[in-house]
């Protein structure tokens, strides 16, 4: 029996395991999933936890429930990969042999990379919503915050879900307005990017929305250190930003097992072919989800479109055919903007987010790059779809490749 091993049972790894398990060609393959932890987090929910929108049960569920019954599940930490021996060495000394390996080990925050961040003020006046504990601590801090300066800082790109910092400041504006405190609270968004977002049309539209809501943007701010006692953020070029509450999106890195395997770049992301998703220099290792170094968003929608592209190519792989350049960098994000509204953007490697209608050209129902109530409901519905449709590997009526139909240039 041949062996396919998936490292990581997060969004990408779980979707993939389910899709492979229902594939007839895989009947004579054994599928193994390796992961160190037992809880699956609905990460988009971390954005809403601080504002009291979700509870713990909405965002945390056992990984086991979402993985296919036929797959072998190993809960253990990976020490390193031995591509020359086609095997994975676990921390407990076990070896897992593979014929095909899929790396889906994701990305994780590293607040310790920024001096001052994760010291005595961590979870007190310095917060993050990029993990569960952080989001819960921040919910408490926001409830108690009555007056002063709330600063959101992105430490370094890339981060998971590059629109999340924008959503956070939009939701903070809505949250404090709703509580009658907005005129006593300043909201500042400090980012290493040259503007609100990375692509021109969306940056312009979102930049205008930030200005309308009185949210101050500090672009090209590359944080060097935080002074937790003076409550100051300091950049490499010696700009300073004062805060009362700091919400940090810390440096992101790939898994340490990737570094131990000497297979990653400076941030432990695995060099990956942009279109076939094969790890560069290997013909039996694929990389999916946040673990790649692709110039695409680190987001669940990207992982989903990558799994679609992988599945089509993997049939060819099994037949010994050449892989096709099927992945186009497709990304699709809901941006919560508060007040019961949202914006939807759809883009890929080459085409920036454009206005239009989605998914049906001219009909929608969701308008692109425009604020609407439908998009907000889309985002809430997505929570249900994530647990019940996406993770289980059921098909969505959205093609893997981005479509220009319905978009206006």
């Amino acid at each position, binding site marked *: 029996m041949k062996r396919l091993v998936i490292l990581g049972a997060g969004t990408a790894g779980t979707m993939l395991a389910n899709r492979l398990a229902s594939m007839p060609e895989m009947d004579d393959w054994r599928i193994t999933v390796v992961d160190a932890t037992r809880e699956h987090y609905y990460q988009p929910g971390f954005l809403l936890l601080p504002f009291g929108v979700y509870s713990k049960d909405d965002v945390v569920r056992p990984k086991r429930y979402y993985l296919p019954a036929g797959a072998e599940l190993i809960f253990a930490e990976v020490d390193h990969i031995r591509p020359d021996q086609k095997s994975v060495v676990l921390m407990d000394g076990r070896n897992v042999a593979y014929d095909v390996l899929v790396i889906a080990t994701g990305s994780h925050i590293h607040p310790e990379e920024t001096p001052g961040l994760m010291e005595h003020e961590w979870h007190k006046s310095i917060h993050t919503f990029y993990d569960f504990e952080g989001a819960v601590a921040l919910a408490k801090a926001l409830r108690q915050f009555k007056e002063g300066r709330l600063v959101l800082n992105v430490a370094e*790109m*890339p981060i998971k879900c590059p629109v999340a910092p924008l959503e956070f400041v939009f939701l903070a504006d809505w949250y404090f307005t709703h509580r009658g405190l907005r005129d006593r609270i300043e909201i500042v968004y400090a980012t290493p990017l040259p503007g609100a977002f990375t692509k021109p049309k969306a940056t312009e539209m979102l930049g205008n929305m930030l200005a309308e809501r009185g949210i101050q943007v500090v672009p090209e701010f590359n944080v060097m250190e935080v002074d937790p006692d003076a409550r100051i953020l300091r950049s*490499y070029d010696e700009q300073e930003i004062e805060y009362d509450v700091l919400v940090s999106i810390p440096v992101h890195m790939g898994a340490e097992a990737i570094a131990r395997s000497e297979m990653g770049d*400076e941030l432990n992301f695995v060099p990956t072919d942009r279109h076939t998703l094969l790890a560069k220099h290997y013909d039996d290792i694929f990389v999916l989800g946040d673990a790649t170094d692709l110039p695409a968003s680190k987001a669940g929608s990207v992982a989903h479109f990558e799994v679609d592209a992988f599945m089509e190519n993997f049939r060819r792989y099994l037949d010994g055919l050449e892989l096709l350049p099927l992945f186009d960098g497709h990304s699709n994000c809901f941006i919560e903007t508060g007040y019961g509204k949202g914006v939807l953007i759809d883009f890929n490697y080459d085409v920036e987010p454009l206005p239009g209608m989605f998914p049906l050209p001219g009909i929608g129902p969701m308008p692109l790059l425009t604020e609407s109530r439908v998009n907000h409901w889309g985002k809430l519905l997505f929570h249900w779809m994530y647990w019940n449709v996406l993770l289980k590997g059921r098909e969505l009526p959205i093609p893997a490749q981005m479509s220009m139909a319905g978009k206006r240039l």
Partner: protein
Amino acid sequence: MTTKTLAELNVALDAEGFLVNPDDWTPEIAEALAREEGIDLTDRHWEVINFVRKYYEEHGEPPTLRAITKRSGVPTKELYQLFPKGPAKKVARIAGLGKPKGCI
């Protein structure tokens, strides 16, 4: 793509001021691009520029700031002093390469 030219040397630049064709690059072009940025190139600048060009030859793309810091041995803080406001992007431009990724 809109293009302009670097006046004194007649080299095509893209809308963001990067060389359209990296093969056009010469040290004189680097000097001229640096002057546009208000930078006088010293030996320490050249150390970084040469590192970035070598990295590009090996990897096919310009390095991110973290890659420069980690592999060239020039600390981040100094990079900001040498190439103020976005060193990775500035060095890439002066070294005649495209815009570094990491902006998604």
